[in-house]
């Protein structure tokens, strides 16, 4: 197992190298190149020349790339054009929010998705099943930002049940230690702050969780249908085991294998910045920062964020792989 992990980690190296090369090339291919991207509206030919001189852009492209890589390895992803802060700091400021949101979305998707998928499979062909299928199809076809607006219009504005933006009511002067607001509230025993942060996660969590929900329902349903027809379930029944043991030990346990992979993949996707959802909910996470960077043409921030997020994504996928190995003895005991 350890060997497998090390191997997978090492296999990441070429991917990450390629990725950095791609993003390096991307910045260079932008109209006007990196100097223009960095200087933006202040760029004059003289300034650009000076900039190129300062940052070694007159050197050979290989040297430039190596330097870029060298900085990236030391976690120096440059500075944001707009704020002038190191990209990494910007990222770290916002990532906790995105993680909280991702967790909220996943909780929503899993808590509803797995039971729904299971029930749909048990009632294969029935009303619940058809409803679940249609709902899951709608889940993937409804534009997320539209759903987000609808949710907010209904629950925040019309009904006023839930907060419709941000991560925490600003009137709660909460102390922030880790930047995970829910956690911070617990740590500082400001439970109202925690609860408020949780409430703020509800609507964006639902909006963001819709696609994973739809996919989890579908995968769970398919997996349960597959497993139910497996020979070993028949064997279990032939052994006269009680229904609950058959379901728990033989059906659900095996059906959850593909579902867990799916959840892992979705985690990767969600962590890579829920650009649309965070924007609509003015949620202080990575996604809204990306959105801002697009409109500000903050290329260095975009480059850095995309690089970091891709690494996060790849690492999460690796974790998924490893956890799959842990879950499935066929892989684990190899």
């Amino acid at each position, binding site marked *: 197992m350890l*060997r497998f992990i090390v191997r997978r980690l090492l296999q990441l190296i070429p991917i990450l190298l390629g990725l950095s090369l791609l993003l390096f090339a991307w910045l260079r291919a932008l109209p006007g190149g990196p100097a223009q991207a960095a200087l933006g509206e202040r760029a004059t030919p003289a300034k650009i020349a000076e900039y190129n001189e300062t940052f070694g852009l007159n050197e050979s492209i290989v040297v430039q790339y190596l330097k870029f890589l060298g900085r990236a390895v030391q976690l120096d992803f440059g500075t944001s054009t707009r704020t002038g802060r190191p990209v990494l700091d910007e990222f770290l400021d916002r990532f906790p929010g995105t993680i909280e949101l991702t967790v909220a979305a996943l909780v929503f998707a899993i808590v509803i998705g797995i039971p729904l998928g299971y029930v749909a499979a048990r009632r294969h062909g029935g009303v619940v099943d058809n409803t679940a299928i249609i709902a899951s199809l709608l889940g993937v076809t409804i534009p*997320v930002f539209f759903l987000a607006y609808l949710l907010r219009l209904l629950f925040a504005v019309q009904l006023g049940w839930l907060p419709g933006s941000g991560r925490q009511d600003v009137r709660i002067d909460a102390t922030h230690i880790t930047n995970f607001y829910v956690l911070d509230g617990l740590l500082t025993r400001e439970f109202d702050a925690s609860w408020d942060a949780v409430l703020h996660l509800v609507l964006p969590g639902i909006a963001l969780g819709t696609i994973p929900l739809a996919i989890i329902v579908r995968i769970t349903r398919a997996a349960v249908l597959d497993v139910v027809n497996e020979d070993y379930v028949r064997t279990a029944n032939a052994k006269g085991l009680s229904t609950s043991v058959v379901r728990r030990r033989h059906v659900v346990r095996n059906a959850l294998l593909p579902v867990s992979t799916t959840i892992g993949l979705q985690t990767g996707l969600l962590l890579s910045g829920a650009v649309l959802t965070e924007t609509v909910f003015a949620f202080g996470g990575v996604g809204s920062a990306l959105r801002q960077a697009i409109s500000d043409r903050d290329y260095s921030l975009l480059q850095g964020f995309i690089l970091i997020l891709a690494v996060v994504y790849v690492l999460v996928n690796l974790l998924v*792989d490893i956890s*799959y190995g842990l879950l499935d*003895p066929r892989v684990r005991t190899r």
Partner: protein
Amino acid sequence: MDQAPGDPLLRVEGLQVHFPIKRGVLFDRTVGHVKAVDGVDLSVQRGTTYGLVGESGCGKSTLGRAILRLSEPTAGRVWFDGVDVASLKGEPLRQIRRRMQMVFQDPLGSLDPRQNVESLLAEPLRAHGLGGDKAAISTRLRELLDAVGLPTAALRRYPHEFSGGQRQRIGIARAITVEPDLLIADEPVSALDVSVQAQVLNLLEELQGRLGLTYLVIAHDLAVVRHISDVVGVMYLGSLVEQAPAEELYSSPLHPYTRSLMSAVPVPDPEVEDHRERILLAGDLPSPANPPSGCRFHTRCPWRQETRCDDEVPLLREITLTPTGAGALGATPAAVRPAVGGPHLVSCHWVEEIHDGRLQPKSPEEVAASQGVSIASGDTGHGTDPLIAGVDEPVGFH
């Protein structure tokens, strides 16, 4: 091997096929080999049938494929009609493939599901520039179908519309389209129902008689092999342990493995079943990646001796013995066709002693005990690459 009288159509010398087992932290290193075929010598005379038997995973298919160069041999030579197939490349190889054809185990899987029978059969003709114009091809196809007993109406149908036996007929028809000399049949009937199995076996025999084909028939079913072979080779873990003319092999199997194999095959006859001696083997086939030292069979052999067996690889040597009823089976020496002779070859250190009854077999329990824990070969599970697994889901935009 220098025993070949006349001129064998196919001669295999020291053939080895090793599949590397790759593993490694960053770069795949070869950490070992699956010795699927590990030094096989055999020759097949023109117009005869050579039957190859052995348990699953012993390397039969790999040997067949290596002869056709569908797998790359690691070492050894394959002489086909005087040409070393193992050294051919490119166009000459393609050309010689016309003369050596293959019939596969899974009749459906070996037929392109998108082609109808007509284009399936015409393809080899076109590939080799045979058959001439359209009309000629069409006539030829009709002849072929007739030869394998299918109606002309079959031409426009697709493989999935046939029954298993009919598919196998198509497979055979396709193999003989290009008028090959050698036909390698890998488990040609094992996927078929018994009733259909017999039809196909009969067809194969009939075609051999009509077209003068040479067969190398691979099967795990000893009865099937016996039924159609002139010479039979028994494989165990990548090498031949015994080879003899069919009748002789069945009347007096010499290698302990062959003996137990034969005793394990059930015969649909209560009289035989009730009275025959069973030699049960201990444990399972060892992994070809890590074959036992010395005699490959020693881990399961009821006659295993303290000396030689564990460390000395037995040679495949010629034995001449008079059958003394050692074989448990009442033989029916019905020589229907001129017996294709050949020596009786066995690779066992103790053949003579066993044959004479000087050595007595041990029970499986004793064998297992003497070997310690029996060697289990596990199936390998598979990991899912999340990147692959993810792709057929819609790309979610959040």
